[in-house]
């Protein structure tokens, strides 16, 4: 494989050298006015020296072609001919004299279904709230909703979403256990934590919003102290506000610094009974006080609930035995002394003792083909009904289990928002795109 790559590279360099040695000498300076119509040749300026004029892939460098001139067309590409027609029409007559081009795309790659990043349950109204990070909204279902296998998907009983809601890359949810107020955290773009009344629906303005730090991810509430905790991915922080904070209110305390071991902080859970704060960390890290970044293993770090400043953790759960792999939202069931972790990249739910530390193996792991788990990032433990709710970003669903479920456990119920087997694209906040000309693939980072 390495030899092949070197050989390919040599071929390319030979092609480049040939192009250079051809010595294309330009004698006329292109006029700027000709460039719009001219293309590459119009861009060159004479130097009196040989110039590199093009970098092109050799035909034999395309994987699977080896010099063959026929393009492989997949059987699924039935729309190809139509696309060709669309291309022809799309290129004609839609550009004004000043270069404005209002042209329709020939293809769109998009997921038309909700993708659920977080979940919570209002045990007073028996409603499940699902955070849709793909279409930007909140979908509300009955707690006992269960999509029949024959159904394409379940309709939510109400939907909250639209430009006025300011929901965008909304990644965490909290329901006030007394009045049912809905708290929603936006992650990367709008920098707002927004609050809605229990029955909000449609494109409505939040009743309260807080200018939250950029890249806020998790939310937890200490109802006794009336304090709201938010995690910030990077620079990693836990910011604590008064519960009713709004506008430009400042946090009442901040946990941050190199000794905290916060590293790409994600989920947060509070154990008010024992006075502990749990944070899940992905491990990508750097500090303004240290030259150069670094990678740490994923971890759960535990602090005193009132920790602030550069306070080190009381203990850390981390290591091979933990099975942590991009841990997302977490939840403490103080009644049973357990910590639940949505283990995104391992398609699993991990359950630890709330007192665990070091390289501790989980006491239970929900994982396997029967579970319906697919990139789980959110969870909620309903101790009233002894159930565990999970949001799956990978398959447009929420799955519900017995609280004490273990192993390859089948869900008690599934709320499905797309046809059976439809995997989510999980394109989230795409800031860039690349094209793999060898495999004819489009590459999208999240």
């Amino acid at each position, binding site marked *: 494989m390495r030899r092949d790559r070197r050989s390919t590279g040599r071929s*390319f360099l030979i092609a480049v050298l040939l192009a250079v040695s051809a010595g294309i000498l330009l004698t006329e300076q292109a006029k700027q006015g000709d460039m719009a119509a001219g293309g590459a040749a119009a861009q060159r300026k004479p130097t009196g020296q040989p110039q590199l004029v093009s970098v092109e892939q050799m035909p034999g460098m395309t994987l699977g072609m080896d010099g063959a001139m026929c393009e492989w067309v997949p059987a699924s590409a039935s729309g190809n001919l139509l696309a060709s027609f669309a291309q022809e029409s799309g290129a004609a007559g839609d550009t004004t004299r000043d270069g404005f081009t209002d042209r329709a795309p020939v293809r769109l790659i998009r997921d038309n279904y909700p993708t659920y990043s977080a979940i919570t349950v209002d045990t007073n109204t028996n409603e499940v709230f699902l955070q849709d990070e793909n279409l930007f909204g909140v979908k509300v279902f009955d707690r006992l909703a269960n999509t029949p296998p024959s159904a394409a998907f379940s309709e939510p009983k109400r939907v909250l979403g639209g430009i006025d809601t300011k929901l965008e890359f909304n990644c965490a949810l909290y329901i006030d256990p007394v009045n049912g107020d809905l708290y929603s955290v936006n992650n990367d773009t709008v920098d707002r934590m927004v609050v809605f009344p229990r029955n909000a629906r449609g494109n409505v303005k939040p009743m309260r919003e807080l200018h939250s730090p950029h890249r806020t991810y998790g939310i937890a509430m200490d109802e006794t102290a009336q304090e709201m905790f938010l995690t910030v991915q990077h620079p990693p922080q836990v910011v604590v506000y008064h519960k009713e904070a709004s506008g430009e209110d400042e946090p009442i305390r901040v946990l941050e610094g190199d000794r905290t071991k916060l590293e790409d902080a994600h989920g947060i859970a509070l154990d008010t009974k024992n006075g502990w704060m749990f944070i899940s960390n992905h491990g990508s890290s750097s500090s303004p006080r240290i030259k150069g970044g670094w990678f740490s293993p994923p971890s759960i770090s535990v602090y005193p609930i009132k920790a602030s400043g550069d306070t080190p953790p009381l203990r850390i759960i981390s290591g091979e035995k933990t099975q942590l792999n991009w841990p997302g939202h977490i939840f403490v069931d103080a009644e049973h002394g357990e910590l639940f972790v949505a283990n995104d990249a391992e398609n699993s739910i991990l359950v630890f003792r709330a007192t665990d530390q070091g390289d501790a193996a989980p006491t239970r792991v929900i994982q396997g083909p029967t579970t319906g788990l697919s990139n789980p990032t959110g969870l909620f433990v309903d101790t009233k009904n002894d159930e565990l709710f999970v949001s799956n970003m990978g398959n447009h669903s929420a799955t519900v289990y017995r609280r004490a479920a273990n192993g390859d456990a089948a869900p008690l119920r599934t709320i499905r928002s797309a046809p059976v087997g439809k995997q989510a694209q999980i394109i989230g906040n795409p800031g860039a795109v690349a094209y793999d000309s060898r495999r004819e693939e489009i590459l999208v980072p999240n």
Partner: protein
Amino acid sequence: MFARLATENAQPTRVIAGQRTLLARTMHDIRYDAVNDEILVANPFAQAIMTFRGGAQGEEPPVRIIQGPSTEIFAQVDRLDVDPVHDEILVPNHDQILVYRRTGNGDVAPIRVIKGPDTQLDDVESIAVDPVNDIIVVAGARPAAAPGQTGGGGQTEGGGGELILFRRTANGNAKPLGIIGGPKTEIVRINQIQIHNGWIIATQPGKYEEQEPEGVFVGVWSIHDRGDAAPRWKLGGPNTAMKKPRGVVLNPAHQELIVADMRLNTILTYYFPELF
């Protein structure tokens, strides 16, 4: 990764994800090096430049990582580009442009650093390199300053509202070859940039704080444009369906321009033969 002809709810052909990949859930650039069949991605939080096999999938680790105190990367590193002709990786990093050997691995020092008051670099985030015409173009993601404004929350020289061009081999406190900026450019801020055949192709996603800003577009300028130059082409408008374009790449073989739109969570492909 999606097939070129994928549409609507198509499934990805493969996914690179998980702890062992060392990717963050937050990524702001990706580049494919067709010559060496490699994928390049920055991890902004870990200040790392990572290179994967072109065919990587699943929880596959990178083949090389540039990271550490010798790299001179500070704070977040968002975007990058690769020059396969001269075997270099170029990284914009606030007030500097760092250039590494493409094959660099570990805690390596840059082979060139463009930095200093004459560079006019200030909080640049995006970059593209043209190995044919020996040009580097950079821009920032912060909004442009209002006319006459300097500093503060807006941009001074070298900010998001401008495209700054350097000779590819520039080093140290080098002056730019030129700057494209001004009201006619209609640039508010720039995200991903590409250069092809002497054309600079840049996404213009509008004001950061607006979820659906007006006037977003993908602009095309010549590498010879200077000053307050209107884009040669401006792909935008209601038919394009774009709401907040941040990523752009070209597929010359099929004369396509591909856009990543963050408000739509959508990849849009346009036939754009004029560019090729």
